[in-house]
């Protein structure tokens, strides 16, 4: 964690030949979710990219403040559910009608009502699994290390702290970003740098 030393060359002991270019973040803490919402919106309007908020629970209106588009999960889940239904129905059809038909009291081999329960269950299974695993693929989790964890006060982000982080692009002075964030009411601003592991 480095405070108040923005824009310095990587100083963690690795030589210039290692090719490691640490990502730099400006992290600001806010007193409550309302202050965070306002600051996020203003920072975005000021033209800062790569904004992210870190809160202990979902804050209402944060999607709009961050300027996020529609969530992608619903489409993924729909695809998963449709795939599950198709797989189940064709599986039963193949096994009980095509590959190994058994004549039970001359009932029809292809009997849709008896195929519906499993079709339904597999639609739920694949839809639900894609809601879960699709989420982790979208969010790129698990990601045990992230530069924001470098800040010691960041532990409050899952307890009662409200944070706004900005990834500083190469060639920009993090101090400028920090000044903007302080201007929008952040109580504590720090510049953090990814460490090489």
């Amino acid at each position, binding site marked *: 964690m480095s405070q108040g030393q923005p824009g310095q060359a990587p100083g963690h002991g690795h030589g210039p030949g290692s090719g490691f270019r640490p990502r730099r973040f400006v992290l600001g803490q806010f007193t409550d*979710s309302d202050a965070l919402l306002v600051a*996020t919106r203003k920072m975005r309007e000021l033209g800062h990219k790569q904004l*992210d*908020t*870190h*809160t*202990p*629970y*979902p*804050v209402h209106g*944060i*999607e709009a*403040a*961050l300027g*996020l588009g529609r*969530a*992608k*999960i*619903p489409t993924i*889940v729909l695809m998963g*559910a449709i795939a599950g239904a198709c797989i189940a129905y064709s*599986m*039963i059809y193949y*096994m*009980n009608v095509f*590959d*190994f038909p*058994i004549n039970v009291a001359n*009932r029809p081999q292809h*009997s849709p009502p*008896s*195929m519906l*329960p*499993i079709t*339904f*269950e*597999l639609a*739920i*299974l694949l839809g*639900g*699994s894609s*809601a*879960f695993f*699709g*989420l*982790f693929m979208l*969010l790129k*989790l*698990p990601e*045990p*290390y*992230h530069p*924001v*964890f470098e800040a010691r006060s*960041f*532990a409050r*982000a*899952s*307890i*009662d702290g409200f944070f706004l982080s900005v990834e500083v692009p190469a060639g920009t002075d993090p101090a400028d970003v920090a000044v903007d964030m302080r201007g929008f009411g952040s109580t504590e601003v720090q510049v953090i740098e990814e460490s090489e592991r």
Partner: protein
Amino acid sequence: MASTSPALAPATSNDPLEPALLIEGAQTDASLNDSLFGHVWALPGKGWWGLFGIALMGLTLLLVGLTYTLYKGIGAWGNNIPVGWAFGIINFVWWIGIGHAGTLISAILLLLQQKWRTSINRFAEAMTLFAVICALIFPLIHTGRPWFAAYWLLPYPSVNGIWPQFKSPLVWDVFAVSTYFTISLLFWFLGLIPDLASLRDSSKSPTKRMIYGIFAMGWRGSGRHWAEYKWSYLLLAGLSTPLVLSVHTIVSFYFAVSVLPGWHTTVFPPYFVAGAVFSGFAMVLTWMVPARHFLGLKHVVTMKHLENMNKVILATGLMVTYGYVMEHFIAWYSGNPYEFAMFFKVRQRGPFAPVYWLMIFCNVVVPQIFWSKKARTSLPIMWIAAILVNVGMWCERFNIIVTALHRDFLPSKWEIYAPTWVDWSIYLGTIGLFSTLFLLFLKFVPAVAATEVKELRHEIAHHAEGGEAHG
């Protein structure tokens, strides 16, 4: 709890017009964090160890029963012909039903935007998982040769070239229950991730920090993540809701699609689902009443939560009663002598009549006590009533399965059924397994979804502020 200030919010108000509180005392995010995770960081007390010891004894019974069954074969059970299904299926249906309350609380009440679900959903979801684990033991072991069950039940391409018969409700059930377990597990874990991150960040020792950190998967409360996370959670709830209805419906098809008097009834699917929720809420109460006391959760699991659960027990109890009435009415109205004999002679006056009357007492009479607010808000009354409901629902499954099987069309086929010690030890053993898993859960995982309670607190505080500012 030191943070509960009676001056700001009275814990119990005697004024019936005063709305009961969902979160008591003046709480902040930090105080909730401390109080809800307190039981995870604290060393378990004597009570926990005592209960854990008893639970382990139960677990031993399960292992003895299962080992003996695998060694001797299903002949060690009391099953006979015609009672080919007995404790195995009774206990399976009973446990699956208990699990249903968890999904109802976490999914259906979420979709209905019932705020009171927040403090009890984690607890009930964990119960779902453990109840389904207990339930799954029975169908697996009742096949007699569980190592063959894979290709009897799952469409696995064996060298025999035989596939399962998908027109059988038994195969439907394999898919329904395994889907139910998987989705419940994913839903539970997804809801747990933000809390695991809080545990990681509030842990004192590096080892605990690392262990909870691994399970938290690097969650950093990112706004971009929350945006997708909320959808994922909501959709899992949306998918779980029809799933939970389908699972017990399919379980009831075991019986309803056969032609046996006492089983061949169209009321079974809704009546099974209502009975499942009924017994599940009773099981949640059985555990919640002591747990909220011992874990210091009284400020988030308030009397309002308990009272609401009692109301659900009353409502579902009435639905179950309606199911009983309809069964009897149709048995008489159909004019079918076998149906009539089953419902009005065999069950009421046959060898298993005590089980029938115990069922009527526990499931029809006992819940009526919850018409009274005094009973709904009395801890000893609700606890005893909840246990009686669990007993009653077990009797219901016994009554459906054993009583219907032991006397069907031909008197020459009639046979009395008696469970053996192996039956009892496996049944009591699953209660031991359930308790063991549940006590471990209470020790290592926050019993209340702290993230959701904080969100609810924020919502309530905002409403109050908004009301003062604009109203």
